[in-house]
């Protein structure tokens, strides 16, 4: 606050404690103040609306007295705040509103339907003024007119308390024309009578309204600030990584000084300069040692606090679902007016917390579903009564916490349900279903059709079936969050939409690396350093690979080995003396270097659980869906190090200890267009100790065969582009490949096919239906 104290020039003398005039303050400060005001005002409006709605529901006369008092005080505070920042229009409107509430407080006025409508309209106007989107053109009253309308509500002096027209109802009433469809005419006939100044609340004896005792204290934080904090915390993580690197450099310098001292001590003769030199270096060495110690301590502290901070920020981002529910009662009220329905809304589970970004993103889908429920789901009161239902419809919105970090949001209405017959018919008309299509016989099969974009954007479905456009968009928005939507309906009775959403987007920064066939993410917090090394810099100590990093000797572990997959590119690279990327991982007080195929960069990833089945794995904490839709594993740093060390000690069953094995591993190419077959074949053959590459069809396979050497090909026959017979023929015709053994694995089990395979030059022909793991491996062993 640069000029805050200086700008407090003159105190307002009208007695509003929270207001003071600001004159001549600098522009920047004023803008900042306006920003703060906008946030505060929005809060006030939300509270006023909430109070109004419950007042409208319970009835002014029967409702608790504190409610009116609370609304009144909120309005008063808003007025004061508006005055403080010089927003005269808002202040004026608040003044008018305050007068109405004041009259209500004193039982001089009981608002009827018309009155409530006018008050809601006033709040809309205030919102519009606040957002700067107010337009006083056609139909919508300007602030001055609105004040007139509000004044028109109140009884003239001398008149008695009017009998309220409004029935006390437990539901939000439908808007009915005969209760006064329009606001009273605004004109000169309404006397602009001066309003009595509202009595000021006398601080001490009036407790703060609305706030429940025991309610947690809340602090308002701008979303942008929070996001910035989030980004800062990430930057801090990056800084921590580079600090680690600096520390390594310092240790390197220390090592060099040590070496100098050793040599100096070895040289026998010593003149005066050298003696001085020795002392000098000795001091330097000691100082540097102290410095390194200090940095190590700082680094440890930083490590800890950055971790806690990042976690804390992630937690701050969580908000109660109540913030999402906030706008629902008002929306229901307006929509039921619009569509002439009577609707009660029941909100449950507001205390459950979820990521602010999730709640924000689901706001529109929620409103859309509520609108649908009121527009198409809930019947008109007369229809409802005729079918034996209560005249008012009920929308139940329920939030519930689920296992695996998901929340469900259910939007249920007790309306007429989805007209599935029409959905079927329209689906047929639009060609989503073929006539006589038997795959969609049950209702459960038909319901998902409502999410089809073609179907739901069709106007036919809107008018016929009762579920409008935009369900496809709801589906998309929820899916984009990593959630799902399902619908269920009971004809004539109810419709429910279940939205399943992640509690947290829990994005974190990770290093994406390639290791064998895997792409995997290493949490950036655990990555101390990434560097390139060459084969010549890798030493073997006691049969274990080690690498020098900044003066320290670290165990070097092949990531692909730790993940139990073969390292596709390794062999060729090692012989070529190419530089290999190494990722240094620190976790659980241990440090190790991991050889990866490629570092694909650091990026923000959204972590998903592995589902309820894969409860706990030592090396994998979750997965993330990459941009191309494929799944990458999110790795556990401590698990990787432990497993790496275990493998290094020879505690693992052979297949990953390739470093020590003298005999080169044989390489098999599996060609198969079906992903399940491919994975199964690959697992079987890999399990027998081969290196397996895969190709999706003959052309893909032939390209790979040209690129590197294989010892055997296992191929499917029936494949797109180039089938197994053609591939075999091509291999036999190629001068470099003619001797390559080919095993055909096929579902084609006729004599002709068998003969065709043999004619093409296949060495073995295995029929899938009689496929046997042992048999395949035996054939492979025999051929190589």
């Amino acid at each position, binding site marked *: 606050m640069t000029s805050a104290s200086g700008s407090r020039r003159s105190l307002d003398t009208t007695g509003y404690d929270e207001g003071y005039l600001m004159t001549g303050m600098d522009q920047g400060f004023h803008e900042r103040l306006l920003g703060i005001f906008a946030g505060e005002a929005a809060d006030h409006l939300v509270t006023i609306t909430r109070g109004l709605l419950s007042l409208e529901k319970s009835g002014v006369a029967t409702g608790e007295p504190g409610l009116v008092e609370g609304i009144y005080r909120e309005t008063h505070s808003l007025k004061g705040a508006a005055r403080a920042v010089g927003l005269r229009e808002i202040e004026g409107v608040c003044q008018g509103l305050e007068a109405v509430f004041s009259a209500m407080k004193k039982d001089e006025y009981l608002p009827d339907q018309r009155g409530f409508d006018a008050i809601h309209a006033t709040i809309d106007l205030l919102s519009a003024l606040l957002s700067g989107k107010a337009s006083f053109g056609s139909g919508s009253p300007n602030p001055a007119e609105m004040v007139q309308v509000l004044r028109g509500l109140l009884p003239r002096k001398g008149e008695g308390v009017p009998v309220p027209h409004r029935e006390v109802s437990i539901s939000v009433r439908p808007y009915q024309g005969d209760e006064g469809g329009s606001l009273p005419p605004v004109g000169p006939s309404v006397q602009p009578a001066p309003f009595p100044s509202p009595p000021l609340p006398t601080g001490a004896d009036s407790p703060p309204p609305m706030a429940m005792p025991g309610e947690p204290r809340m602090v308002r934080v701008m979303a942008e600030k929070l996001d910035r904090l989030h980004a800062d915390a990430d930057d801090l993580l990056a800084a921590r990584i580079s600090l680690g690197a600096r520390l390594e450099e310092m240790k390197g310098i220390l090592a060099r000084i040590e070496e100098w001292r050793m040599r100096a001590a070895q040289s026998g003769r010593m003149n005066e300069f050298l003696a001085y030199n020795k002392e000098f270096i000795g001091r330097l060495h000691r100082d540097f040692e102290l410095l390194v110690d200090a940095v190590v301590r700082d680094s440890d502290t930083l490590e800890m606090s950055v971790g806690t901070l990042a976690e804390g920020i992630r937690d701050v981002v969580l908000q109660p679902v109540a913030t999402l529910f906030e706008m629902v009662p008002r929306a229901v009220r307006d929509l039921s007016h619009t569509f002439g329905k009577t609707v009660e809304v029941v909100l449950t589970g507001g205390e459950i917390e979820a990521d602010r970004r999730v709640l924000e993103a689901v706001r529109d889908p929620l409103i859309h579903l509520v609108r649908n429920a009121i527009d198409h789901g809930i019947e008109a009161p007369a229809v409802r009564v005729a079918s034996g239902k209560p005249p008012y419809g009920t929308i139940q919105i329920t939030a519930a916490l689920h296992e695996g970090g998901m929340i469900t949001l259910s939007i249920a209405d007790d309306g007429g349900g989805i007209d599935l017959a029409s959905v079927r018919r329209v689906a047929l008309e639009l060609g989503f279903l073929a006539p006589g299509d038997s795959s969609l016989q049950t209702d459960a099969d038909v*319901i998902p059709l409502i999410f089809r974009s073609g179907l739901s954007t069709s106007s036919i479905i809107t008018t016929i079936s009762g579920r409008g456009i935009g369900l496809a968009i709801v589906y998309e928005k929820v899916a984009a969050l*990593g959630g799902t939507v399902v619908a269920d309906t009971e004809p004539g009775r109810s419709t429910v939409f279940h939205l399943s959403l992640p509690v947290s987007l829990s994005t974190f920064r990770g290093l994406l690396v390639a290791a064998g066939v895997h792409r995997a993410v290493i949490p950036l917090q655990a990555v101390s350093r990434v560097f390139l090394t060459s084969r010549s810099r890798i030493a073997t100590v006691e049969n274990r690979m080690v690498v020098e990093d900044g003066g320290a000797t670290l165990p070097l572990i092949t990531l692909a080995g730790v993940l139990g997959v073969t390292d596709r590119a390794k062999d060729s690279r090692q012989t070529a003396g190419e530089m290999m990327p190494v990722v240094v991982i620190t976790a659980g007080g241990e440090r190790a270097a991991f050889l990866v195929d490629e570092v694909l960069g650091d990026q923000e990833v959204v972590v998903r659980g592995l589902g309820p089945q894969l409860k706990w794995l030592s090396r994998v904490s979750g*997965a993330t869906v990459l941009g191309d839709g494929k*799944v990458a594993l999110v790795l556990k740093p401590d698990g990787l190090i432990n497993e790496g060390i275990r493998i290094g000690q020879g505690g693992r069953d052979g297949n990953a200890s390739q470093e020590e094995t003298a005999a080169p591993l044989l390489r098999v190419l599996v060609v198969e267009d079906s992903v*399940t077959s491919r994975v*199964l074949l690959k697992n079987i053959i890999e399990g027998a100790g081969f290196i397996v590459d895969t190709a999706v069809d003959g052309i893909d396979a032939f390209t790979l065969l040209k690129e590197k050497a294989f010892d055997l090909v296992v191929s499917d026959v029936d494949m797109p582009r180039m089938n197994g017979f053609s591939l075999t023929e091509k291999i036999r015709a190629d001068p470099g490949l003619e001797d390559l053994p080919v095993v055909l694995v096929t579902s084609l089990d006729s004599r002709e096919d068998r003969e065709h395979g043999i004619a093409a030059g296949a060495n073995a022909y295995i029929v899938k239906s009689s*496929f046997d793991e042992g048999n395949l491996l035996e054939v492979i062993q025999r051929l190589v």
Partner: protein
Amino acid sequence: MYFNTSLTSDNRGHVTGSGMGRPDSGESLDALLMRRAKDLAAPLTEERRSEDSTAFLEFHLARERYAVELSYVSEVLFVRDITSVPGTPPFIVGITGVRGRVLSLVDLKRFFGLPTGGITESNRVVVLTDAKMEFGILADGITGISMVDRRSVLPPPATLSPIGARFIMGIVEGPLILFNAGSILAEPMMVVIEGGETPKVGRLPKV
């Protein structure tokens, strides 16, 4: 129970069983629906009570026919990509992404120790769900939906090990083996906790 996605048209279900008729029998859709409505509206007699028949999703695995109770099937998917996961037993084929979520995939043949009898190539996955558990099982093909009359179910053969018997409700003539999806989902050995017990499950009968 509802489907997230519908069965695709090339694996359309067909309904068999008492009184339900087959849609591909040539009669018009209207006539079929009408007859079915009549059937359904008919008062329940001792001979034909609705609780006597249950809907099963029928699929084949290794050239043998199996079925799971439809109420445990949340959807049928095609998988495009499978990521293998280190530290999992062999019956876990890997994981796949389904609309942003991660689904683990189970090879029931390996779980039940059926080493022979073909390999899956249809990329089809039947997603089994109950309140607590969810995973996909590989299937060679989806045959359709069958109404199975309880009284036509034969008990699993006595030669079956007690463990194997737990996962089988019975056998219908055909033969069609009815998996007990409920107990497969609830099976503690299906849950993977690395370093924990590795499952040893009795073999299924050769039918």
